[in-house]
């Protein structure tokens, strides 16, 4: 099934590998993110679960990496889809019309890292962080706290 999955996603994968501990990841171009989800949803009849979206601020590489942690019910398999977006203008297509359960995760990443999800009309700020922090993106590596900005 693993080879079948790689085969299905072969047109989109830039890089693939395994995390320590064994779970697989596939890096794709951010412009192809929706295509990947469409392919997965088509292949597994919509039974694809987004566990979360992990954002990682790669400060020295001037990019923010978004890891879509996915669980595929029919094959009982966890995979991660990675996309990169530039740190100075972080944007990626929203997937909430494809997987509505991803809404809170997109709102969280938008609030804490300032990544815009194109097509998500529910993006609000602040969502989780307190209102006095305003437009801060506190989980970015160069954020030093309200008193040190």
């Amino acid at each position, binding site marked *: 099934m693993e080879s079948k999955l790689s085969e299905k996603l072969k047109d989109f994968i830039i890089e693939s590998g395994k995390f320590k501990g064994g779970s697989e990841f596939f890096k794709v171009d951010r412009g192809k993110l929706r295509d990947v989800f469409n392919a997965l949803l088509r292949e597994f009849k919509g039974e694809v679960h987004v566990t979360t979206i992990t954002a990682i601020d790669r400060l020295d590489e001037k990019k923010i990496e978004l890891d879509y942690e996915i669980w595929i019910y029919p094959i009982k398999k*966890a995979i991660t889809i990675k996309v990169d977006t530039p740190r100075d203008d972080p944007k990626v297509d929203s997937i909430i019309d494809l997987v509505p359960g991803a809404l809170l995760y997109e709102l969280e990443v938008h609030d804490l890292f300032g990544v815009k999800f194109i097509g998500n009309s529910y993006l609000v700020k602040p969502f989780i962080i307190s209102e006095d922090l305003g437009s801060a993106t506190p989980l970015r590596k160069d954020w030093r706290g309200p008193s040190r900005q």
Partner: protein
Amino acid sequence: MEGSLTSIINLIFGPQHPALHEPELFRFKVEGEIVVKAEPRIGYVHRGIEKLFEKNTYIKGIYLSERICGICNVAHTVCYCQVVENVMNIEPPPRAKYLRAVVHELNRIHSHLLLLGVAAEELGFDTLFMLIWRDRELVMDLIELITGNRVMSAFNTIGGVRRDVNAETIEKVLKVLPKLEERVKYYRKVFEEDPTIRKRTVDVGILPRRDAIRYCVVGPMARGSAVDVDIRRDIPYAAYDEIPFNVIVRDECDVWARLMVRVDEVLESINIVRYALEHLPSGQIRLPLKRSAPPGEAISRVEAPRGELLYHLVSKGGITPYRLKVRTPTLANLLAASKLFEGHTIADIPAILVSIDPCFACTDRVTLVDVKSGKSTKVSLRELARRGRE
């Protein structure tokens, strides 16, 4: 309808003590007694713990992760220790893995009994609440016996566990389990047959399987909607690949199903604890502690009492994580939960809310609005529960 004579009222539910005595706010739009829409507002207890992890050593991270959620603290430390162990390339000894499973299951039993007691209280069955919580003390005593602590167990550590059990402790635990099992079987009969409980929970808050998948729900909420998923079986960790157990799945998709899943899971957990202690491997309980991790990235998933818990660790070498992401189960269930209230009466709100078993401290994050007049009202869960009983 809004703006007409029969308009919608905003009923504010929270943020003080909205559910299970934790700060959360739901804005319910109600038309008469019927909920038209529910909007959660989260963030009241967001404490920036992911950022704190980046500033603290891997060792301090164990205690930090334990404090994300008091109720399911063992799930957090198991998940945290596993993700760090993955990055450090270490495998805990077999005895430690079995002991992790034992304490993880005792933690699940206490969490489920806590919720079942609160559910009984919200349904107006205060005696049942007190009886369940009385019997929950049996589990709390067992947790204290094994870990030395009632709540914050401080049991897991990187590379294994901190305390061993001797034959006398095992004998004491195995002696209490039949008594606990007998009581839980009685509570199962009550939840299954009591006409008042059934009237308040059957066909209330229905989450069809398709929606459970679309909204990415986890844990007993998913299993109560016919979604067959359990991380302990699907991505085995600790000693779950060696311990036989059943995954409880029901297809009624309502509040009752979600409560029954938890009752049956308590019985399964008792069997897991019994099996693990009877088949406890000999040997050491932990490996020498490593303080720093090599560069690398790992993910750990565990089945916490409320569902799948995920930690994602990125290390660039050294004694602190570069990034540690924590996804707690209540956040995953909140979106679907908001849909469950629609079309039900205000009196059903507490029953639906407890069936989610929300833990807002770990998610971090209710308001009622009258559709006719547009008025907002702040109502406590206790008031709502009282109205439900009248």
